[in-house]
Each structure stands twice: as structure tokens, then as C-alpha cells.
């Protein structure tokens, strides 16, 4: 009973991550609108769409993870994948904001490429590690089930 309670609390951690990403998505939309307010109504697609990284990559991604492998957090690789993936999403979102600022100002910079390389690189690496965690988690479950039988 006690172990089950711990597992329920741990499983909620992934849903908490989903919630945090949802809040950050809303915040990204607010930031875009506030920036447009002070930028004489000028908008940039990069800034307006930066919330998608958080919503699709973050909230939806972790929700799917929770559906597919709710016990993935038990894998020893999960923390590494979690850190890498979140960092990638953060770099992409900040990169989108940065590009938006440049677009609105009417200039360009090589730093946008650096944000993209960093962001996509970390997201891809994080995703690979998370997939490994999921596989690891699933195979362990199978083994435990086999032992029980």
C-alpha cells in the first residue's frame, strides 16, 4: 500500500511537468502580445509561434510519455533525458523569442543559428535518452511480470 502511494505521487510528477509547460505556453503568448503592444503592433512569426515549442514539445510530449510509459521515471536514464529534453525546448523557445526581436527590429544575427543548433541538438539528444528510458522501463516491467508468473 505504501509503495503504491509513492508510485502515485511519482507518476504525478510527469503530469506536473505537463502543467508547468501549459502555464509556460500561456506565458509565451502573453509575452508575444505585450511585446507587440510596445512594438507599435509589429509582430514576428518566430515570436508568435514560440509557444508551440512549449505546448507541443513540452506539454503534449510529456503527456504522451505519461500515457505510454507512466513508470519511465524509474529508469536510471530518465533524469538525464529529462534535463536534456527540457533544456532543448528552453533553448528553442528563447531562440524563437530572440529571432522575433530581431525580425521586429529589422535585423539579423548569427546567434539565431546558434540557438537553433543548441536547441534542436539537445532536444534530439534528450529524446533519444527518453526513448531509451521508455524501452528500459518497458523491458523491466516485462521481466517483473515474467517473475510473478
Amino acid at each position, binding site marked *: 500500500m505504501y509503495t503504491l502511494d509513492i508510485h502515485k505521487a511519482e507518476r504525478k510528477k510527469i503530469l506536473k511537468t505537463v502543467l508547468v509547460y501549459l502555464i509556460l505556453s500561456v506565458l509565451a503568448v502573453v509575452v508575444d502580445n505585450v511585446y507587440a503592444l510596445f512594438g507599435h503592433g509589429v*509582430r514576428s512569426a518566430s515570436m508568435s509561434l514560440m509557444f508551440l515549442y512549449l505546448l507541443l514539445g513540452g506539454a503534449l510530449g510529456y503527456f504522451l510519455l505519461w500515457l505510454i510509459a507512466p513508470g519511465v521515471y524509474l529508469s536510471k536514464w530518465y533524469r*538525464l533525458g529529462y534535463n536534456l529534453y527540457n533544456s532543448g525546448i528552453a533553448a528553442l523557445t528563447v531562440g524563437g523569442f530572440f529571432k522575433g526581436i530581431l525580425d521586429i527590429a529589422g535585423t539579423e544575427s548569427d*546567434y539565431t543559428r546558434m540557438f537553433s543548433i543548441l536547441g534542436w541538438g539537445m532536444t534530439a539528444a534528450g529524446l533519444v535518452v527518453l526513448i531509451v528510458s521508455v524501452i528500459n522501463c518497458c523491458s523491466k516491467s516485462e521481466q517483473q511480470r515474467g517473475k510473478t508468473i
Partner: protein
Amino acid sequence: MKIKQFFSKPYRWGVLFGGVLAIFFTYALLDTFVIPKALVSAEQSESYARDNQTATSDPAYGQSEAGQTNSGISQPSDDSAAEPSDQNTESAQSEQAEAVITDTSYSDENISITIETVREYDTTFYVADIEVSDASYLKTAFAQNTYGRNIKETTTDMAAENNSIFAINGDYYGFRDKGYVLRNGVLYRDVSNNAEALMIDSEGNFSIVQEGEISAQSLLDSGAMQILSFGPVLMENGEVMVTADSEVSQSMRSNPRTAIGQISERHYMIIVSDGRTSESAGLSLLELAEQFEKRGCSTAYNLDGGGSSVMYFNGNVINNPSNGRGNREREVSDIVYFGYS
């Protein structure tokens, strides 16, 4: 192992990476918008170009090669292209005569300027009609007399430092890494922006060139004295080149604007509009082009606008600059001016 243990604790990685990302973001912003990067002094490069020209035209200096660059500076390989202008400059400077000056006009033997304030399209704009006896009275200047990125000064300060009679903001070249920069017969940047640029030749005539199709060096060799790279082209060969949908990058329809046009030989028209205020909405590019058309311009070109738009005349700012932080002049990279120095 210790590192793994350190990062296995929640938030530690997040806090560290967040900090690094915030520092990188701040640095990227500062490097793009604030940190000045002086590449070359305009004074040095112009004197270098002059010296090299003397060297190439003087057999005693026969070893110098025209067209060679020093610190990225380039001069015409055919020295005949820029030579008349230098002679003109010297003669022009010695010809400054007594001027008749009012709040909206200036007139002497060589330069005649009349500024008219117009109210149309719910917008106030200022139309300057300028005639000069010699093309060398039309010049450009850099902020702090230096070519580089994020080297900035207000149009007023640059105009005063160059003893200009009349000045407007230029193309704000220092805000971008692309676009030809050729000023007063010296080439500073030969990187195409794949856009249409305004070329002013040594006779003071305007023409539109497509960057990328011809290099800035070739234009310099063919006699270009100035290249301004912003756009779009408002008028070419007497025809309006923009539509109601034309816009600069991400800009809104109505804006403060700065544009320059040519009516005939050494006869120019400059329009600067107020905008983004309750008193003055600002002009669309089509409205701006129509004003040039109405006044008989054959060529007209849009320059940097928005908060950069400034018209300076005889020590005063004529328009009401709007930079989004009150009615203060925005610092820019360069100006186009008329004057003797």
C-alpha cells in the same frame, strides 16, 4: 560520478542551464544591438582613397594599384570616376556665398532649399525641394565618422558635426551585416542584401541597382559616389513601383518615413513624415510614392523610417521624431546631407 550525483537532484541542472541560457541570450542581444564594433574610420579611409588616387595618377608613385583594399576599404580602380568630384569639392568649398535663410528656406549661389509642411492622409509630412549647382554638395556621413556596427549618433549631432545645412537619416547600414555600403566614393561593404539599392553617381544622378547582379566594386568603378541600401524603390523612370500592399519587412502600413527622390539634374526632393501618434498616423509606401509622383520625381527611394526618421535644417529638427520612448531622436548609423564641408 560526482557530477552525475550532483545533477540527479531536481532543479540543479535546470537552474544551471537556465542561468547559462540567460547569460547567452543577454550577450547575444547586447552584441546585436548595443556593443559598438568600429571597423574603420571614415576620415582615414577617405584620405587613404585620396592618397591612393594621387599615387595611381602620379607616375612617381607608379607602383600603387588602384582598387586595392586596405582594412576592407576600396577605391575606384578607374580613378577618373571619382576625380571630378574631388575637384568639385575643393572648388565648392571655396565658393560658399552669402546665404538668405528663413525658418523654411535657404538660398545661396550654390544651394537652394525650400521646406513645405503638408497635411494629407491624416498625416503631417515635410517636403524639401533642394537644388544644388554641383553634385559634391550632396554627401553622406557616418556616426562618429566611423564605419562599423552599432556605432550610433543622432542625425542632429552628425549634421552639426559636418556643418550641414540640411540632413536626413540614411539607411542605418550598421544595423545589418548585409547591403552595399559605399559612401563619398569609398566602398566599405560589398555584401549583397539581394535588394534594390539607390546609387548616386559623381554627377549627382540617381539610379536603382539590383544588389547581387552587380558588385559594389563594379558600381564604384563605374562612378558611383554613394550607395544606399534600404528600400523599397518608390519610383523608377517616372513610374510608381510600390502597391498598397508594399511594406518594409515587418512594418505596419502607416509609419514615420524618410525618402529621397530626384526631379532632374541636381534637383532633389526629400519627404519625411511624422507617424505613430494621434496627431499624425504616418504614410504608407504608396502614399509616399504618390507624393513624389505628384511633384515630378523620376526616381525615389525609401530610407530607414520609424523612429529613425529625422529632417534637420539649419540647426533644427523639422519633423517630430517618434522612437517609441517619447519624441526623442533615435541614434542611427548615418546621414545624407547637403552642405559645404
